[in-house]
């Protein structure tokens, strides 16, 4: 499918880094639709769920516009979905952030605070070890640096969904792949050329 024909929706729930995600997709030659409409999101061929900030606020923002249910539907339908940072965290069952907060429970597991003793947030470029062989890593060498900025990390129960891990006080899950669901703790849209490559690989997979 030619670039531009594919319907790409970027979910707008009133927060997050959606401008950066849109800029990255535009650079790759796509024309994403930024939308808060469940109807538009369910109609799209490919969906991005951006995220920056607190998981609780993100969940509230998504629920307020009925988007949490829409995301669950997309996953059930195996619609290609890419979730970023807090967008990844809200896929899990619950988070420790702000006490305890129920999340979407698409990926069973907890979101926990990074261990004490290190600077928080974990901010900057760190290596992603590829623990899964997958075409989304095409032309991206193992242990490539990606840009992180977060204080909590995902701990999925089912280790078979872990696609990448990163070391910061402990080895945590920095990337999840399950069927057509892709989620990164890091920000590909802020990770230079390897980040753009990852989005481009994902979009290729999504259109095949």
């Amino acid at each position, binding site marked *: 499918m030619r670039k531009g024909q594919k319907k790409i929706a970027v979910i707008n729930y009133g927060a997050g*880094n959606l*401008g*950066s995600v849109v*800029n*990255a997709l*535009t*650079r790759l030659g796509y024309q994403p639709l930024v939308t808060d409409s469940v109807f538009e999101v369910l109609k799209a061929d490919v969906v991005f769920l951006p995220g*920056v*900030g*607190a998981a609780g606020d993100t969940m509230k923002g998504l629920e307020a516009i009925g988007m949490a249910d829409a995301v669950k539907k997309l996953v059930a339908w195996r619609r290609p979905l890419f979730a970023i940072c807090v967008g990844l965290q809200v896929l899990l069952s619950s988070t420790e952030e702000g006490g305890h907060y129920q999340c979407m429970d698409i990926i069973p597991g907890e979101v926990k605070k990074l261990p004490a003793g290190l*600077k*928080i*947030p*974990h*901010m*900057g*470029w*760190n*290596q992603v070890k590829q623990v899964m062989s997958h075409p989304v890593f095409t032309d991206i060498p193992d242990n490539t*640096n990606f*840009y*992180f*900025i*977060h*204080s909590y990390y995902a701990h999925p129960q089912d280790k078979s969904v872990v696609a990448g891990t990163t*070391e*910061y006080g402990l080895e945590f899950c920095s990337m999840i792949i399950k069927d057509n669901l892709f989620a990164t703790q890091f920000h590909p*849209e*802020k*990770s*230079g*050329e390897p*980040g*753009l490559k990852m989005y481009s690989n994902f979009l290729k997979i999504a259109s095949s």
Partner: protein
Amino acid sequence: MLTKRIIPCLDVTAGRVVKGTSFTNLRDAGDPVEQAAFYYQEGADELVFLDIGATPEARDTMVEVVRRVSKKVFVPLCVGGGLRSISDMRRMLMAGADKVSINTAAVHKPELLKEGAAIFGRQCMVLAVDAKRTRGKDEPGWEVCTHGGRKLTGIDALEWIKQAVEMGAGEILLTSWDADGHQAGYDNELNRTVSEMVNVPVIASGGAGTLEHLYQALAIGKADAVLAASIFHYREYSIKQVKQYLAGKGIPIRN
């Protein structure tokens, strides 16, 4: 392992990149968008834009610069200079900045850090501190300067930084007033004291003139990132050269 960040700083006024000595005597050069794209291609880990004009008209120009840069540059962008309110910060973030740095406004109204952190997240809130050494005491000390380094406040810099982190600052952009613009090395006593005192990342700024200076800020100053303007702006060193040098000295660097 988390790598140390190399951050070129672009001092911008009226839409043009400038660079000065101790905050005055500016020399003009360069289009900010072109400069930013160049640094991105060279491997900068992040970019900082400081609007040193910071008049209302200049701010509109800056918003436009940020908007254009964010379409070309896919590493984090931090913007500061003259941001006085939540709505000023929001404009920059909406235009494509990932972080905003505040200095004078935070000193006058520390609640801005708290409000900003609550709305945009702590990771967006960078506290910029211009610290000037206080003389005539046995203990090393620093005082906060505001208004682009022109005004001494009498506020203890270490106490202020501690308070600001409690209020919501997620990162410290630490400029040595004494060292800035002289290319004679960072104030690494300041860098190390602050880096060991707070639990958020510290960007060392002010004084880079050689590759060794950058190494010292990371190794001795314990900074998480180094910021420099002149050495990159005047092409004394390329970012690639800096990274090769630091990697050779055992500093974890993104290649």
